């Protein structure tokens, strides 16, 4: 008998569901968080995700690409959920955010290396909070007895607390560089290269800039009215690449993804699609040499014991 499947598309979210009698698989794409980047469509092992460029009307800003998921192809594996840099996709089983691919070590998790040093906070420290282009940082101050202080005027005798919504953070490092020095320390998980060829970039076009979610990752040059990238902040998600109207004007390449250790064909394939075959072979080589180093170490340790 037929499987009950549901697909709902609203302004807020795209929802896919398998309603089985004993289990309920649900995928939710939060359209407010989705920036229309390339990652999920490339990562999907079943090629169920498509990005559709949106028509741009003259005089209007460019609109981010629309992500659509094919219910017939989706297997609710959650790989898109794991890899979305902005945490826009949530795959849940019976309402719980449990990802079998992660549990069974079939797929790694992104490493969001975000360190907070509140001792470096000075003043209200609001610079750090305001620096985040995605509003994921919340700075609050406490009295020594643990009471939250609203509208901080003086931080005398108060303790700062900085909360970061890590699951939505693409690790752009804007807070580290533009916020108060030394408070935030962020390491990217997506590495790559971005370049815009000025000779190909049409003058006056700022489509990429319009869709880029990271303030400062792209900027309009005062001199030639063309857009240039700032590699310090770019997270290489590729939202800009999807809207760029000129072929090859914008070049974007991912080279490395920082993730928890894993041994998985699915990961190798996703990595290949997201970076390049070179990226995969580099990672495999690193893994291989790591393993070789470990085994040498093990052997030496053993000898050490014997000779001790």
């Amino acid at each position, binding site marked *: *008998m*037929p*499987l*009950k499947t549901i697909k709902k598309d609203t302004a807020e979210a795209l929802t896919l569901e*398998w*309603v*089985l*009698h*004993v*289990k309920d698989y649900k995928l939710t794409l939060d359209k407010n968080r989705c920036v229309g980047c390339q990652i999920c469509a490339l990562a999907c*092992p*079943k090629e169920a995700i498509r990005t559709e460029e949106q028509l741009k009307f003259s005089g209007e800003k460019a609109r981010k690409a629309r992500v659509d998921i094919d219910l017939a192809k989706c*297997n609710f*594996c959650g*790989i898109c959920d794991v890899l979305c840099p902005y945490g826009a996709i949530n795959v849940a089983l019976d309402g719980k955010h449990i990802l*079998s*691919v992660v*549990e*069974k*070590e*079939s*797929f790694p998790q992104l490493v969001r290396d975000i360190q907070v040093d509140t001792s470096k906070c000075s003043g209200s420290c609001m610079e750090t909070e305001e620096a985040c282009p995605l509003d994921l940082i919340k700075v609050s101050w406490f009295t020594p007895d643990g009471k939250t202080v609203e509208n901080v005027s003086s931080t005398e005798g108060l303790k700062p607390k900085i909360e970061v919504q890590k699951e939505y953070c693409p690790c752009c490092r804007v807070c580290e560089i533009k916020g108060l020095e030394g408070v935030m320390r962020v390491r990217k998980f997506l590495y790559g290269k971005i370049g815009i060829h000025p000779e190909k970039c049409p003058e006056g076009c700022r489509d990429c800039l319009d869709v880029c979610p990271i303030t400062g990752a792209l900027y309009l040059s005062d001199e030639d009215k063309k857009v240039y990238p700032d590699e310090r902040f770019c997270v290489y998600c590729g939202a800009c690449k999807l809207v760029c109207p000129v072929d090859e004007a914008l070049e974007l390449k991912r080279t490395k993804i920082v993730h928890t250790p894993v*041994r*998985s*064909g*699915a*990961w190798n*394939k996703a990595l290949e699609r997201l970076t390049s075959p070179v990226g995969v072979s580099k990672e495999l080589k690193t893994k291989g040499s790591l393993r070789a180093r470990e085994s040498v170490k093990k052997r030496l340790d053993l000898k050490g014991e014997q000779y001790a």
Partner: protein
Amino acid sequence: MPKRVVQKTFRAPSKKKETRPKKVEVKPKAIEGSRIGVFVCQCGSNIASVVDVEDLTGYAKTLPNVVYAENMNYPCSRQGQDNMIAAIKKNKLDRVVVAGCSPRLYEPTFQRCVSQADLNPWLFEMANIREFASYPHQNAPKKATEKAKDTVRMAVAKARLLEPLKPIELPITKKVMVIGGGISGINAALDLADMGFRVYVVEKTETIGGYMALLDKTFPTLDCSICIEGPKMVDVGRHPNIEIISFADVLKVDGHVGNFKVKIRKNPRYVIAKNCTGCGECKDACPIEYPNYADMYLGVRKAISVPYDQAVPLIYTINRDYCIECFKCVDACGAREAINFDQKPEEIEINVGAIILSIGYDMYNPADLEWTGYTKFDNVFTALEFERLILAAGPTNGKVVRASDGQKPHSIAFIQCVGSRDINRYEYCSSFCCMYTLKHAVMLKEKYKDAIEVYVFYNDMRSNFKGYEEFYNRAQKSGVKFIRVKLENRRIAQDDQTKNLTVYGETEDGKPVSANVEMVVLANAAIPANTAPELAKILNIPLNKDGFFVECQPKIRPTDTDMPGIFLAGACQGLKDIPYSVAQGSAAAAQAATVLGKPNWIVEPLVAKVDEDTCSGCRVCESACAYHAINVEKVGDKQLAKVTEGLCRGCGICSSACPMDAITMPNYSDRQIVAQIGAVLQKEEKA
């Protein structure tokens, strides 16, 4: 001996005689010397009460070459046959005509009788004076007798020209293929394997077992279904004479009885069968789940898994539609090295002497019957879905719970005849729904007692086999409420708040009835298997208007098909319950054994013969033949029509169609038929 359907009366002789004057007419060499005997049957009063048999016998004696004629009652009886043999010997007869009933019924009997008198069995001819004279002209005995005389005269005219023929012997491959490994196919396979024949069981899905393996209990004994079928499945898997070719499709069947060539595609499981131990460690490592068809999509299975634990053969399968290729299963399988992601579909060819078709049935999806609310309302289930709910090993571990809130329902309505007995859907009765509904009702009542209200909205309760009526009584006594309604004007409505349902119906005298329930179970129609049309084409076996395979004769040959060597078993021939499927499986096995057990397959020599000098290889015969029995092949530097004797049914269509007049039918030659026509016209000339 296969019975040939020879439409003697309708077969027109070739008209090309005049246009082909060159062809030398062979002089009927038998005319002068032949000694014909005519035996007129009284058939009790069936013939004798209308036709004047004395007059007819006297008339027969006057016909040229007839040296002996007698009328007797029941020449088909043993006594009658003995008398015939004696008369043949005594009068040195060399041609025999029996004027009696249809050759479809008694020709083989008389042919045997004739051969016992040391006469070639094809030197025998029947004149059907019962169906042609006494039956249709009961009110005109005089004219009936005249017509009988015509018929006898025609038969004698032909008998004069009959030629002795030799039966054709074909070798037999002592192997058999069973298509479909449900309960009837399992029984057919086991029986044949026990008789010592090699059996191939070709199964479309991953496991044999069919629908019976998915059921919870069987009626009326409430035996656990898989507990009684499981051991049989295991027997099939372990039997040294049986090879299961599962997850495979039959692509092509060539050849004929005794020697079929079957092309099969084995679909890739991505698991190497001989290396897989069925340990299931891969399944535990697999992160991906997908809806399980064996659970009617109520539950899930892993991307590498078996549909259920008792699967035979116990070989895991990777569903590449869902697999993400993380290769965790490869790691888990380890040194067994059973997983191979590069597996490709594999085509194999097997030779078999007989084929048993037991592909079973499918279930109708009632989503297009709007009044049922199926797929629209959460708590409306089909019977098979309910079966998986109540099954202890099912997705809910045997808990009957609603889809909307996971709660146990306090009232359930069963609705009968959903899609079946409906002229707009399936006109036939699905045969087993009444009984499985009774089973479900009894199980619920006996498990939950008064905690559950069970309603059955039925139209006719069909409980007409051994122990079934008693089971119906048991259901009535257990407190199930039976509500008889018309099949029209039934309707189900849902309360959107509580997701409870109201079933509306109308009694036979037009009074509205309804029941508020928390769950509805539909007895949806069983329908022909979706592979039936394709297999019908491959095997050249017709389907009836409902889509079930047509048996040779519905009453006395229910397992035979019109194709010799191909037999039917189980629900693909017509819907039937388990014991009858089992019985028919065994019956088909016995039928197949009658083929396989013979040293050679004897074909009646009434097959088309091609004159190689005249044949132009134009292929008209090829397209005329309904049995694919005549094909044009290259012989030397000439294209020639070749007859596959095992397939030819002797219908004569190719002979009529041949523009070169190169095909003759032994004992239905133009000469013989012209002689018959001449015999009829001869009388008209006289009159």
